[in-house]
C-alpha cells in the first residue's frame, strides 16, 4: 500500500477540518481568497474520493484502506477507518457533491468565511461517518455533521411566506436540528445498549458485528433496540412520518447547504441503518424489515403526493427527496440482494440528482428572487442550460432509463417483487406520480412564453456550469454504465446480507 492509499481516508476527514482552520486564520475581507481556498478544498476532496473509490478492490471485498489509531483505551474507542463497497460509493458521492457545493457556495456574498468554515465542518462530519468503522466515531461524525446546520440555515437561509402559512428560516433551522438530534438520541441509546450488551468492551464495528453473529446480542434484545436505530437513522433519511424537517429545512437552507444536506446528509441516515441496523442487529433487521419496507413504500407515495400540491420549487424537490429516500428504505426493507443493491445505488443516484436540482433552483432563485412555480414561466427561452439540466434532473427523478435513478429504482422494484410484490407495485405507482409533479413543474416553469419580467435572466455562469456538470456526469454515467458502481457495491451488500442469513 502506498502512502496515499494508507492515508486517503483520514485525509478526507482532516482535509475539510484543516480547510476550516485555514479559513479561520484568513482575514474576513479577502473574499476571493476564501472562496478560492473553499473551492480548492472541494476539488481536493473530489480527487481524494475518486481515488478512494478507485482504490477499493471489489474483488477482495470487505473493509479496505483500513487504519486504526488508538484514541481512548478506557472505553475501547479507537479511531478506526475503512470502507466497504457501500462506503466507497458514499465517499465518492460525498466528493462529488462537496465539490459542486463548494463551488456553488462561492455565490454567497455575506460572510463567506464563516460560511465556508461551517460548510467544511459539515463535510468533515459526513466523510467521517462514511469512513468510520468504530461505532463511537461513526456517531461522533454523525453528530458533527449536524452541528453547523443550525447556523448555516438560520444565518444564510431564506424564509418562505405563503398565503396560508409561512416558514421562517429560524423555525426551519431549529426544527431540523432538534428533530435530527432527537433522532440521534435514539441512536445514542441504541449504540450504548449494543456496546453494553455485547460485552465486547470495544466500539469496533467488526468486533460488535462478530458479537452479533456469536449470539451475544440475543434476539429479544435486538428486537427492541432495532426500532430505536431504525427510527433514529431513518429520521435523517426522511422516514415517514418523521420527514417534516426535510422539506422545510431544504427550502430554507442556502443552496449549497441544501445540496449537501439532501445530497449527502440524508444518506447518512440510510447508511446508518445499514451499518448499525443491518450489520450489528441482523436479527432485529430481520424482524423489522417488513415495517421498514412498508414505511419506505409510504414514503414513496406520500412524498410524491405531497409534492403534487407544492408550488414552491424547493418544496417540490424537498418532498421528492422524501419520496426518493423511500425507495432506499424500501430497498433496505427487502433484505434481498437486488433490493439492497438498488437501495445503495439509489442513495448515490438521489444524492447527485437532488444536488443538481438544488444547484439549478438556486441559480434560478438567485436571478429571479422567487421560487414560485406559478410566477416563473418560460425560463427555457431565457436560461437554456439551466432549464435543460433541470429537465434532465427531473427525468432522472421520475426514473427515466439512461439516467441514474432508473437503474436504482428498477433494482429496488425487482427486489421488492422478490419479497413483497404488493408493496413493490405501490412503489412503482408512486414513481408514476413523480412523473406528474415533475412534468407539471417543468411545464409551468420552463415552457411557455416568458413574461417580460424574466427578460433580464441570464443563463448559468461558468462556475455554476462546472458545478452542474460535475453532478450531471455521474447521473448519466450511472444511468448508462452502472456496472462499475454495482460491482463495488456487490461485496458490501453481500457482507451485510450474509449476517442476516437471507
Amino acid at each position: 500500500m502506498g502512502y496515499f492509499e494508507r492515508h486517503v481516508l483520514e485525509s478526507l476527514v482532516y482535509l475539510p477540518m484543516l480547510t476550516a482552520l485555514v479559513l479561520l486564520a484568513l482575514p474576513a475581507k479577502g473574499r476571493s481568497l476564501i472562496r478560492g481556498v473553499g473551492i480548492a478544498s472541494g476539488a481536493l476532496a473530489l480527487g481524494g474520493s475518486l481515488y478512494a473509490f478507485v482504490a477499493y478492490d471489489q474483488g477482495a471485498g470487505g473493509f479496505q484502506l483500513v487504519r486504526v489509531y488508538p484514541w481512548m483505551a478506557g472505553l475501547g474507542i479507537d479511531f478506526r477507518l475503512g470502507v466497504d463497497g457501500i462506503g466507497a460509493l458514499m465517499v465518492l458521492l460525498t466528493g462529488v457533491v462537496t465539490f459542486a457545493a463548494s463551488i456553488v457556495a462561492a455565490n454567497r456574498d455575506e460572510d463567506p468565511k464563516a460560511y465556508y468554515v461551517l460548510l467544511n465542518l459539515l463535510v468533515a462530519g459526513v466523510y467521517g461517518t462514511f469512513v468510520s468503522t468504530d461505532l463511537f466515531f461513526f456517531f461522533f461524525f454523525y453528530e458533527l455533521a449536524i452541528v453547523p446546520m443550525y447556523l448555516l440555515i438560520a444565518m444564510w437561509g431564506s424564509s418562505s411566506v405563503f398565503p396560508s402559512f409561512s416558514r421562517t428560516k429560524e423555525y426551519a433551522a431549529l426544527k431540523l436540528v432538534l428533530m435530527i438530534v432527537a433522532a440521534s438520541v435514539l441512536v445514542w441509546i441504541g449504540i450504548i445498549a449494543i456496546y453494553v450488551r455485547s460485552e465486547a468492551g470495544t466500539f469496533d464495528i467488526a468486533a460488535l458485528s462478530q458479537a452479533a453473529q456469536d449470539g451475544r446480542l440475543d434476539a429479544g434484545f435486538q428486537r427492541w433496540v432495532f426500532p430505536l436505530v431504525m427510527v433514529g437513522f431513518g429520521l435523517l433519511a426522511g422516514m415517514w412520518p418523521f420527514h417534516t424537517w426535510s422539506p422545510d429545512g431544504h427550502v430554507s437552507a442556502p443552496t449549497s447547504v441544501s445540496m449537501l444536506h439532501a445530497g449527502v446528509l440524508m444518506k447518512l441516515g440510510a447508511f446508518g441503518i445499514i451499518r448499525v441496523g443491518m450489520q450489528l442487529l441482523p436479527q432485529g433487521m430481520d424482524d423489522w424489515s417488513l415495517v421498514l419496507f412498508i414505511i419506505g413504500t409510504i414514503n414513496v407515495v406520500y412524498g410524491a403526493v405531497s409534492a403534487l400540491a407544492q408550488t414552491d420549487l424547493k418544496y417540490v424537490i424537498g418532498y421528492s427527496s422524501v419520496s426518493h429516500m423511500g425507495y432506499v428504505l424500501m430497498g433496505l426493507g427487502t433484505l434481498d440482494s437486488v433490493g439492497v443493491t438498488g437501495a445503495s445505488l439509489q442513495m448515490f443516484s438521489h444524492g447527485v440528482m437532488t444536488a443538481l436540482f438544488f444547484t439549478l433552483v438556486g441559480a434560478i432563485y438567485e436571478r429571479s428572487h422567487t421560487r414560485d412555480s406559478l410566477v416563473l414561466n418560460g425560463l427555457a427561452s431565457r436560461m437554456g442550460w439551466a432549464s435543460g439540466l433541470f429537465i434532465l434532473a427531473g427525468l432522472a427523478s421520475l426514473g427515466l432509463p439512461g439516467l441514474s435513478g432508473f437503474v436504482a429504482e428498477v433494482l429496488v422494484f425487482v427486489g421488492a417483487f422478490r419479497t413483497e410484490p404488493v408493496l413493490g407495485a405501490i412503489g412503482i405507482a408512486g414513481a408514476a406520480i413523480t412523473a406528474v409533479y415533475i412534468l407539471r413543474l417543468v411545464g409551468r416553469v420552463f415552457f411557455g412564453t416568458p413574461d417580460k419580467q424574466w427578460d433580464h435572466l441570464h443563463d448559468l455562469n461558468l462556475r455554476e456550469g462546472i458545478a452542474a456538470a460535475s453532478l450531471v456526469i455521474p447521473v448519466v454515467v450511472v444511468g448508462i454504465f452502472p456496472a462499475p458502481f454495482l460491482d463495488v457495491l456487490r461485496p458490501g451488500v453481500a457482507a451485510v446480507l450474509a449476517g442476516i442469513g437471507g
Partner: protein
Amino acid sequence: MHTDFSLLLPEFLLAGLALAVLVVDMALPQAWVHRRSDVAALIAVVGMALVLAVTLLTGTDNAGFLYDQLLFTDRFALLFKVLFLGTGIAVSWMSQEYVGAKMRHPGEFHALVVLAVLGAGLMASAGELLTAYIAIELLSFALYVLVGLGRGDRRSAEAVTKYVLLGAVSSAVMLFGISLLYGATGQTSFRDLQVPGAWTPLPIVGFAFLVAGLGFKLSAVPFHLWTPDVYEGAPTPVTALISVLSKSATVALVIRFLAEGAMVYQDHWQGALAILAVLTMMVGTLTAMAQTNVKRLLAYSSVTQVGFVLVGLAALSEGSANAIALHLAGYAFTNLAAFTVVSMVEVRAGRESIAGYAGLAASSPFAAMVLTAALFSLAGLPIFAGFITKFALFTAAAQEGLLWLVAIAVLASLISLYYYLRIVRAMYVDKAEAGTPLASRLHLSPVSAALAWALLAGTIAVGVYPGPLAGWIDAATNALGPFLGS
C-alpha cells in the same frame, strides 16, 4: 499516625497566597492604587500557577494520608486539586476586567478565590466527615462573601441573603445527618462507615440528610432553588466559580464518600440517586427553556449538568468515576469559556439577557464563536468536550445497568439543545438595535481574549483527543479502585 506535613505543601502555599494577596492589596503604594485590581489578579493567577506547578511536581509520588485517614493526598485528590487550581486561575484571570470595572475590593476578591480553591481541594482530599464538613464550610464561606461582593445592587443583596441563610440551613441538615452517622457507627472516617448490615433506619436517615446537604451544594433538585437566584445576583466570575469549583468539589467529595463509605449499600441508594438524577435533569432542563436571562439560563443548565453527574453517581463504579471526572474536566473548560464571554459582554456591553445578546456575532465574532462552542459543548455536540464526556458518562452508567436512566439523560440533553440554540440564534441571527453597544464593533481586552482562546482550545482538545486526559484520570481513580471495584 502519619503526620508528614510536607504532603500539605500546596495547601499551606495556597493559604499563604491568600494572605499575601490580602496584604499586598492593603499595603499597595498610593501610586498603584488604580491598578489594585490588576495587581491582585496577577498575584493570584501567578501564585496559583506556581502552586499548580508545585502540586504537580510533588503530587505524583506523594500518595498517602494524614491523621488516620483524615486527609488523603492520593492521585484522586491530586487530579481534582489540579482541576480546582486551573479553575481558580481562570476565574481570577477572567475577573481581572470585571473586578476592575465593578468592584471595590479586589484584594479580598482574589484572596477569597484562592481560599475557595483551597477549600475545594480539601473537599477532594477529605476522608472523614468532620474534615469534609469544615472544607465545605471553607469553600462555602468564601463563596458567600464573593457573592456578597457584588456591587451594591439589590440583586446582589438578595442573592447573598438567600445563599447564606439557605446554606446555613443545609449545613445544619447535613450536620444532623453526620451526627446520626456518627451515632450509628461511632466513626466519622469514610472507610469505617462501611459496616455490612448497618443499613438500618437511623443511619439511613443520617445518610439521607447528609446527601440532602451535599445535594444543596450540588444544586440537585429539589435542593436547587437557590441556584438561579444566586447565579443571577452574583458577580459573573463568581457565578463561574460556583458552577465549576463548588460543583466539582462536591462531586469529588461525594465520589470519595460513596466509594469508601457506602459502596456496599449501592443497591440501596442507587435508586434514590437515580430518582434524584431524573428530577434534577428534567427540572433543570425544562425550566431553562423559558429563561430570558443568560446567567439564569446557565444556572438551570448547570442544574441539568449536575443531573448528568448524578446519573454517573447513581451508577458509581470505577468506569463511571472516570467518566464523571472526565465530564467535570470538560465541563470546567466549557463553562469557564462560556462565562468568560458572558462576563465580558456584561462588562463591555452591559448585557445579560438573551435578547440583549442580539448582534454579538457581528459585534465580536470571536466572543460569539467561543460562546457558541461552549454552548454546543454543553449541549453535548462534537467536536467539543461535552460530547465525549457525556458519551463516556452515559456509557458507564449503562454498563451498570441503568440504561433507562441514560435514556432520560439523553432526552434532557436534547431539550437542552433548544435553549442553547436560543442564545446562538440571538447572537448570530438577530440584529442589534441601532445605538446599542452591540451595534458597533466590540473590542475584547487581550487578557480576556487570551483566556477565551485557551479555554476554547481546551474544550476542543478534550473533545477531539481525550485519550491522555482519560488515561490520567484512570490512574487517579485507581486510588479508589479497591473500593469501586465491583
